[in-house]
């Protein structure tokens, strides 16, 4: 008994200093502190972290990172707002769309003419007001990676920007890669509806269609059902089915990095990581395939926003001006990010010939963004249902319901919640 008491007291003494640490907030008398909300622990080569550190070093201010995982932000951000405990700067893909009243209109402090309009529209996700709550930081596009060694082994020529594969050619070559290329899976795709949606756009489908000034639900159209049926067939033959059927949380990017996948559907945000991590085999970026109704790519990305009630909102604006209005700073960020530029006058000019070639393919994907995708974005259908759509796709891939039934069910749900009619 005495031993237990002694043991607990010793542990408490060891832990006591943290009490002082945790409770005493420093009052800023010298350098100011910019608190930044991130959605994951930044890696050593993270472009945003590096540029924040550069700003801190140049200005003598401090940067305090607050990491709240993407999934938890929806729970945590409203609580922070309610308790008036908001970070000064938020790196986000969706918080400004979900809580628009909590953020400053940044068009009043930053010259919006410097940005690519597409980037502003896609990342801002605000199609109803003239406000700009979120400035583009990482501008991304979906793209296709390939295992060059596996292609060589299987005797497959890499498609070119001028002569991309059709979906049938893609499937045939994925089979060939699996048979002769030394890979376990011919292809893989992130378990994300945004990657899958390219298939419906290529097939002439969409989630919604314009209906006067409003929208109609189109997710169970014939084109969508056919696209899903094709996707199910792919999953049953050349893809790691568990990823989409819900049997695992494995990230297909890890499979690709291991050399287990021949063709990988993901996005430009992976490029920097692949460039640093993949040394065991040759790889590259290939143009995405073309479907019955044309090509498709989906733009996206994350932006920077300033909560209206943040204590350090002025400091956050100072950082934004430094970051965007001095092109050398954004250029440095872009060089580290190796992604698309969201500023008109800043372009990425890599020195490595491999990156130059890959970057050209990435840029060619931007032109493939379809009108149907733009309509879906404007509808903001994800405000009604988001993960439920992916769940519907998963059920169909798993085989518990047919593609048609699964999409019909989701279409009815979306129609009911949004108040939009089903498209004829």
């Amino acid at each position: 008994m005495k031993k237990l008491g002694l043991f607990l007291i010793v542990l408490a003494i060891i832990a006591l200093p943290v009490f002082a640490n945790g409770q005493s907030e420093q009052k800023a008398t010298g350098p100011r502190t910019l608190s930044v909300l991130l959605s994951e622990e930044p890696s050593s080569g993270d472009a945003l972290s590096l540029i924040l550190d550069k700003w801190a070093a140049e200005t003598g201010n401090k940067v305090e990172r607050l990491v709240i995982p993407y999934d938890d932000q929806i729970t945590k951000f409203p609580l922070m707002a309610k308790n008036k405990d908001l970070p000064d700067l938020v790196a986000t893909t969706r918080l400004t769309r979900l809580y628009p009243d909590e953020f400053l209109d940044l068009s009043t402090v930053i010259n919006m003419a410097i940005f690519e309009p597409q980037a502003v529209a896609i990342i801002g996700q605000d199609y109803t007001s003239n406000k700009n709550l979120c400035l583009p930081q990482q501008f991304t596009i979906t793209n296709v990676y390939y295992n060059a060694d596996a292609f060589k082994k299987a005797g497959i020529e890499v498609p070119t920007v001028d002569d991309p594969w059709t979906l049938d050619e893609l499937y045939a070559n994925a089979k060939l890669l699996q048979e002769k290329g030394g890979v376990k899976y011919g292809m893989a795709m992130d378990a994300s509806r945004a990657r899958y949606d390219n298939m419906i756009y290529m097939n002439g489908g969409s989630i919604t269609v314009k209906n006067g000034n409003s929208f109609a639900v189109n997710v169970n159209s014939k084109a969508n059902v056919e696209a899903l049926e094709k996707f199910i067939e792919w999953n049953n033959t050349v893809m790691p089915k568990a990823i989409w059927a819900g049997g695992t949380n494995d990230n297909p990017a890890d499979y690709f990095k291991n050399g287990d996948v021949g063709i990988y559907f993901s996005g430009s945000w992976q490029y920097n990581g692949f460039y640093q991590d993949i040394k065991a085999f040759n790889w590259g970026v290939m143009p995405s395939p073309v479907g019955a109704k044309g090509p498709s790519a989906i733009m996206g990305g994350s932006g920077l926003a300033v909560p209206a009630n943040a204590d350090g909102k002025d400091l956050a604006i100072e950082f934004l001006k430094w970051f965007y209005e001095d092109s050398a700073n954004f250029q440095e960020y872009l060089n580290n990010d190796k992604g698309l530029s969201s500023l008109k006058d800043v372009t990425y000019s890599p020195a490595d010939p491999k990156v130059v070639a890959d970057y050209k393919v990435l840029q060619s994907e931007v032109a493939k963004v379809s009108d149907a995708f733009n309509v879906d974005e404007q509808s903001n259908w994800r405000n009604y249902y988001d993960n439920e759509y992916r769940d519907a796709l998963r059920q169909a891939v798993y085989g518990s319901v047919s593609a048609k039934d699964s999409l019909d069910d989701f279409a009815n749900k979306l129609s009911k919640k949004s108040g939009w009619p089903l498209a004829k």
Partner: protein
Amino acid sequence: MKVEKKTSKLLTALSIVLAIAMIFPIFWLICSSFKQPNELFKYPLKLFSSDPTFQYYKSVLSGGFMNYVKNSLFLAVVGTLITLAISAMCGYALAIYRFEIKYTNLVFAVFLLGTLIPGETLTVPQVSVISALGLYNNIWGVILPVVTTTTGIFMFRQAYMAIPLSFVEAARIDGCPEWKIFTHVMMPLGSSSFVTLAIFSFMWRWNDYILPMLILSNQKNFTIQLAIKNFIGNTGVDWSSILSASVMSVIPVIVVFVILQKYIIGGVSAGGVKG
């Protein structure tokens, strides 16, 4: 006799199988924490790395992991100390005064009824109260809401009920004040319950995720479980860092368990069987 021997052997074999089933995932976790990222999902899976590395331990530690350890340690130890004090006193009152004070058993029944309410449903009111008390983003906002546990009270009540009331009566006749009866007579007799609840409480606080996630919003105050979740990103998961951090996070729990495990069986028996 032969049948007994056979049964004993069978049970021993079953125990070994169960032990392996319990230990193997931890062993796999430890082995995987030394693997390079490209080995983690390489099929066929291998137990040992062909190119072991400490890189991810180093990167996790350099990212301020020890601060999260200190926060979790503070939360777990202080939370456990308060839980033990409240549970022991409450259990003592419910056990010893059950004949002296009317409705004591009814009060206990109300406590038990509380366990029927799912914890998740209490989260929103808990957070609202913490917020109203000004404990948002304060480690005490994570400690205080969970220091009262019906399991602990139940455990102590049962343990003290197993002790003959004559001990208390004898002490009273000798003029021992009530507080001293509790601390000098009953507490030593119920020591195994202290140890058992200490282990459980430490593990509950150490592994708690939801409440710290909701209450803490300053990274300096984050606990280990919050820090580990931060390696799960929107577009990818840093498994190597998660594995290294997880290995480091289980060490204190194992240390506490190893030191106190010899008492745990006695505590469970005292709380669950007697009385």
